[in-house]
């Protein structure tokens, strides 16, 4: 019995909701994995903040061109029809509402859609990158994340306690246990692992889950 989805399975689930022809920005790290799981017959165009639209997977080791990287500073390749542009144009695409989807990681998501994903507090060196721009730009801002922190605390919460990335910006969360929409300041449960009871899921969630009539089973292939 599956006790929770792997990161690859969470990424796979998020990829199923990306429409053919969508312009998509994937956050650095775990969200980059979503690109691997585009359903057959659908083609998304991936945007990276540093000025490329239409990039593909990493080149083989030794064939990197370090003028061709993504926002995570990793080497990428180009797909036919790719485009280069400067940073102001890149963020015009973001803030101007031209991106269809941004998928980001999270430390915490609140039931009103607030996101905290850039700072764990005052220690160390703060770094924000493009996250604060992305959350107020894309038509749809989704989060992929483990349902709880490494020490078992809920990441879906009533109100974020960590520094915010954006206010009321997230509309869907794909977790290791469930798919949850954010509507009217509430978490609405859309899918959950069939092995998990509603009570068990609620106990791992930091705010009340609204239960609509139909809650689908969250089933991902072995990856």
């Amino acid at each position, binding site marked *: 019995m599956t006790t929770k989805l792997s990161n690859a399975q969470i990424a796979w689930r998020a990829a199923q909701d990306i429409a053919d022809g969508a312009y998509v920005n994937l956050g650095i790290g775990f969200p980059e994995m979503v690109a691997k799981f585009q359903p057959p017959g659908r083609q998304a165009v991936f945007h990276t903040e540093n000025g490329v639209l239409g990039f593909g997977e990493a080149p083989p080791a030794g064939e*990197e061109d*370090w*003028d061709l990287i993504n926002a995570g500073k990793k080497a990428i390749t180009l797909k036919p029809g790719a485009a280069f542009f400067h940073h102001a144009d890149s*963020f015009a695409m973001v*803030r101007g509402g031209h991106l269809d989807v941004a998928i980001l990681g999270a430390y915490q998501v609140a039931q009103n859609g607030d996101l905290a994903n850039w700072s764990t507090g005052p220690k*160390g*060196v*703060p770094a924000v990158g493009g996250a*604060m721009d992305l959350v*107020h730009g894309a038509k749809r801002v989704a989060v992929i994340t483990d349902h709880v922190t490494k020490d078992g605390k809920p990441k879906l919460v009533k109100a974020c306690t960590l520094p915010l990335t954006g206010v009321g910006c997230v509309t869907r969360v794909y977790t290791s246990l469930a798919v949850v929409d954010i509507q009217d300041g509430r978490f609405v449960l859309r899918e959950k692992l069939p092995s998990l009871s509603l009570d068990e899921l609620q106990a791992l969630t930091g705010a009340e889950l609204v239960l609509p009539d139909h809650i689908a089973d969250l089933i991902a292939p072995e990856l």
Partner: protein
Amino acid sequence: MDKRIPNLAEAVAGIPDDATVMIGGFGGSGAPIELIHALIDRYLATGSPGNLTVINNNAGNGHVGIAAMIEQGMVRKMVCSFPRSADPRVFTDKYLAGEIELELVPQGTLAERIRAGGAGIPAFYTPTSYGTDLAKGKPVAEFDGRPYVQERWLKADFALIKAELGDHYGNLTYRMAARNFSPLMAMAAARTIAQVTQAVAPGGIDPETVVTPGIFVSGIVEVANPAQEEALNRADAAYPPTRPQKVQA
């Protein structure tokens, strides 16, 4: 009109102490390594320019480029969005020791502040950072029912950038994702110096492909085989080369 500068030392000769310097590049992509290292050479020889404010997306990686400037103690303040990298120790140590100031700016706001500086727009409103710690103390206004944060333009005394082709008038093209902030910085600095991989005569760049028109550029200096910051770091390089280096990738 001929904006060619004969060598790197002359290209960076006019940058004074206390200057604000925009430096192109996103990570190593587009980083004008030779111009930066020429500035370090000048600093090591003369003690100037110091006390600089540097504007870049990052805050250096390893011990070359901007990290080497910081390591030598030339930089008073960094304005950037992401002061982390594969090896950010030079900046991190100085920051935690209170020896360097940091102004953290969201990446799109950084780009737009620079663009605004170059376009003569003193302030603008953006949804970015609304309701976050980075909006503290900034004016907020509502437009069509949504809150926006006021941000100011960002200008500089100098911009140091890397381009691919440059003609005698300063028209520039870039290579792939290496353009990133450079066209914006060229607009926003009082003087922009571009190192170009190939200098060509006027007419050598198709006007349809010019990315930065020469009006934004003060001087070009040819660096035929520019170093890549990423390749230098993978070869464990340092500047100045104080320890034996591996063969460069």
